[in-house]
């Protein structure tokens, strides 16, 4: 009898301790989250998402919601079993966008014991600054989007240790040129010319390359010229007018938040709405741009940022039929009830989605690596090996495939920023008035992004890339 009781207790105990590990067959997660099955129980372990970047400088508009997204996602994943039982947490440092601070922070993080196995960065400039260092220290890095020098080196042919979860900025502009050249909506016509107007710096200049412009020429889109401005610049009417005078019919910007909003407002203020179309990098379609654009209205009675084209390499907040987005929205709304001050309309942006995507990607990377080498033995090189073989769709938001030496994703589509109409289902236009909502004491329109194309591979426009025209 005693023996039977002892065996029963043993079975119960095993059950109690083994349950979290077995639970990583995603018992707690919805079906659409398909992680690799755990082979090791990591209960009691902690995986720290270590990240640093500009949280108080020019990029703070974007990066602040990233922290909230990471925190909400971490809470959700931990409450559903974490990574094979291991909990997730985040630790970050603010570099304020100061290059020296970036290097100093990296020095501090990289010399910790144990050495970090994986880092997250935000800015192209940071990636370029640390490219050689992370390779030397064998610490792989995930970054949201990057420049050719940061990911592939100056020659564009030397894949490093940094992996971008969005298409290269060059490839995004190439995608847009494809869109203009193919003109599926019939809005562009022949003889389009792009004026490139962006922030000064690695990010702003990232897509302004010879390869991009020769590719655009090959699809029938010319380059009118490039102008740059600082995030602190008050007025860019001269730069905008310079490009229009040079024949630009499209103004493309590699900037974010106040950058695209300033370009759009300047176009309206100069009365150029009928002469140029606005377009931009994926960050240009961010909620912050849609809200800032409402300070200036065009002659059609809609905000200056209405009709802004851009890259949309992952699903957007409004695409709630996509289960990942539905889950994120549900969790956001729940979190907003307990922490409304950190879950404002501006938090519903790109970076918040990226936060969730990063946590899911971390989970998959660690499961695969732990399965292969054992959790205790994981090194940065092991993580890199996992990432290099990855073909995974975090929360179904986008496709991550770094195989064959790729250091960025390639799936991209083109979308357009607009504003929700009164009917709550369509996009407002001159005949269809926008829905007006009251947030706090302000009346606002609701910015939305509408995908205009399906996901297709963006052209590879690295130096020597597969799609760069000969000669």
């Amino acid at each position, binding site marked *: 009898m005693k023996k039977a009781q002892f065996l029963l207790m043993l079975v119960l105990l095993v059950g109690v301790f083994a349950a979290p590990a077995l639970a990583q067959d995603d018992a707690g997660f919805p079906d659409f989250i398909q992680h690799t099955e755990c082979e090791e129980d990591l209960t009691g372990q902690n995986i720290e998402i270590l990240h640093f970047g500009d949280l108080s400088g020019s990029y703070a508009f974007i990066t*602040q919601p990233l922290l909230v997204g990471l925190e909400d996602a971490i809470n959700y994943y931990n409450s559903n079993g974490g990574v094979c039982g291991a909990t997730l947490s985040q630790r970050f440092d603010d570099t304020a966008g100061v290059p020296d601070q970036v290097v100093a922070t990296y020095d501090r993080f990289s010399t910790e014991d144990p050495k970090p196995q994986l880092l997250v960065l935000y800015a192209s400039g940071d990636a370029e600054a640390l490219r050689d260092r992370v390779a030397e220290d064998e610490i792989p890095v995930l970054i949201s989007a990057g420049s050719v020098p940061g990911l592939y080196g100056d020659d564009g042919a030397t894949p490093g240790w940094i992996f971008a979860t969005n298409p290269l900025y060059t490839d995004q502009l190439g995608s847009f040129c494809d869109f203009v050249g193919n003109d599926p909506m019939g809005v562009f016509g022949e003889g389009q010319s792009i004026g490139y107007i962006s922030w000064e710096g690695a990010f702003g200049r990232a897509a302004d390359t010879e390869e991009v412009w020769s590719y655009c020429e090959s699809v029938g889109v010319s380059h009118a*010229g490039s102008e740059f401005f600082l995030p602190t610049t008050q007025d860019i009417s*001269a*730069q905008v007018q310079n490009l229009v005078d040079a024949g630009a019919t499209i103004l493309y910007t590699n900037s974010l938040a106040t950058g695209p909003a300033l370009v759009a407002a300047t176009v309206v203020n100069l009365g150029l709405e009928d002469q140029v179309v606005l377009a931009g990098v994926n960050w240009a379609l961010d909620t912050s741009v849609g809200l800032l654009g*409402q300070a200036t209205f065009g002659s059609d009675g809609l905000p200056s940022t209405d009709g802004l084209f851009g890259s949309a390499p992952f699903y957007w907040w409004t695409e709630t039929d996509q289960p990942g987005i539905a889950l994120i929205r549900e969790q956001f709304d729940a979190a907003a009830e307990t922490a409304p001050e950190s879950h404002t309309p501006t938090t519903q942006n790109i970076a918040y989605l990226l936060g969730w995507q990063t946590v899911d990607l971390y989970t998959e990377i660690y499961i695969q690596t732990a399965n292969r080498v054992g959790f205790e033995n994981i090194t940065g090189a092991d993580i890199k090996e996992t990432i290099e073989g990855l073909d995974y769709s975090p929360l179904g938001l986008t496709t991550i495939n770094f195989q064959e030496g790729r250091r960025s994703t390639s799936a991209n589509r083109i979308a357009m920023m607009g504003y929700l109409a009164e009917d709550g289902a369509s996009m407002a236009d001159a005949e269809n008035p926008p829905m007006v909502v009251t947030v706090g004491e302000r009346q606002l329109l609701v910015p939305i992004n509408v995908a205009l194309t399906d996901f297709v591979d963006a052209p590879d426009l690295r130096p020597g890339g597969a799609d760069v025209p000969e000669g």
Partner: protein
Amino acid sequence: MTAALRDPRKLPSLIATVAVIVIALVWLGPLIASSAPNRLVQSGITGLLVGGVYSLVALGIVVINKASGVFNFAHGGMMMVAGFIFFSFFTTSNIALPFALIYSLVTVGLAVSIFGWRNLLRQPSLIVIGVVAVIALTFVLTLPGPNYKWIRGIVGGAMGAALLGLAVERFTIRPLIGQPLFASVMMTLAVSLILNGTTQLIWGSQPQTLLIFSEVNPIGIEVKASPLRFDTAELLGGNISVERTRLYAFGLSLVAFLAFWLFFRYTSVGLAMRATSENQMLAQSVGLRVRMILAIAWAIAALLAGVAGVLHGGATNLDTNMQYLALRAFPAVLLGGIESIGGALIGGLAIGLTEEYSKLLFSGDIGEQLAPYIVLMVVLVLRPEGLFGQKRIDRI
């Protein structure tokens, strides 16, 4: 010129000036000639409008420098914080009574205790004035509804700016009296960083739209005032557009400038500040309360920063980047002459015009970034004291 020709010591300066002018004409002449006339006029207008705000920022820096000799690197931060304080009062219809009371109490408390708390106890009349002021300010701040947003914004913003200036002076600059000036300058750098962090903690990092120069559009939403457009196609080959938000900001900058110029020139406190800036020891020996004057100077500089912050925020947005606007005002300060009020105005306008014309003539942002500093360098080489600065000769 004839004086320069008569005085051989001034000849190199004259030659350098002529050389600079010739080089500028040879280099820039063809570029200017190839630009469309409407673009030249447009850049001139925009440059003046942008420069007006630079001038106001420069004035605040000059005020501190005149009174204390400190070059205030925290001015941009003060501008940002004061702008956000105005925004909060302007856009919040219901300010909680306890908050308004504490806010008024702290501001008035700091103001009436310029000479120290012990002195306050010796002057009961100051306490009475303070109590009345606290009650009145609390009442104004708690006026409910959007109809009172202007009075709430102006009073709350002015209180915030004054509080900021007085607090910076009292707790960071005053303890350094007697220390090398460099220590105070470094302290302003530290204050700047603290203000940046505090702003993010309180208001976050999202840019805010400050609709002070606004109109209601056809769908009933308040938006920024639309630009003025002038049909000058026949005359200048193209139209001219003037942003009304900038025009208003420029106009108000000039009004603020004039008000402070009159203050410095004709009020006893203004005159005392000018005397203190000349020689603190001498000013104290003739009975001027130097400590009080320094505190007032900081409060005034903070008010100027606040006005600049609100006007700039109204013309563009309120965000944490606006603190760096002060960096654009630094060359204006040096160009005009570091202790010259008129120089701040001319310097600001000159920098605004330089920026705009460089953007027109040179593609990219190199012109915008470098041109003000090149102009500054050339002027300082030719006139080290700036355009309107005082020439100082130290005999050793």
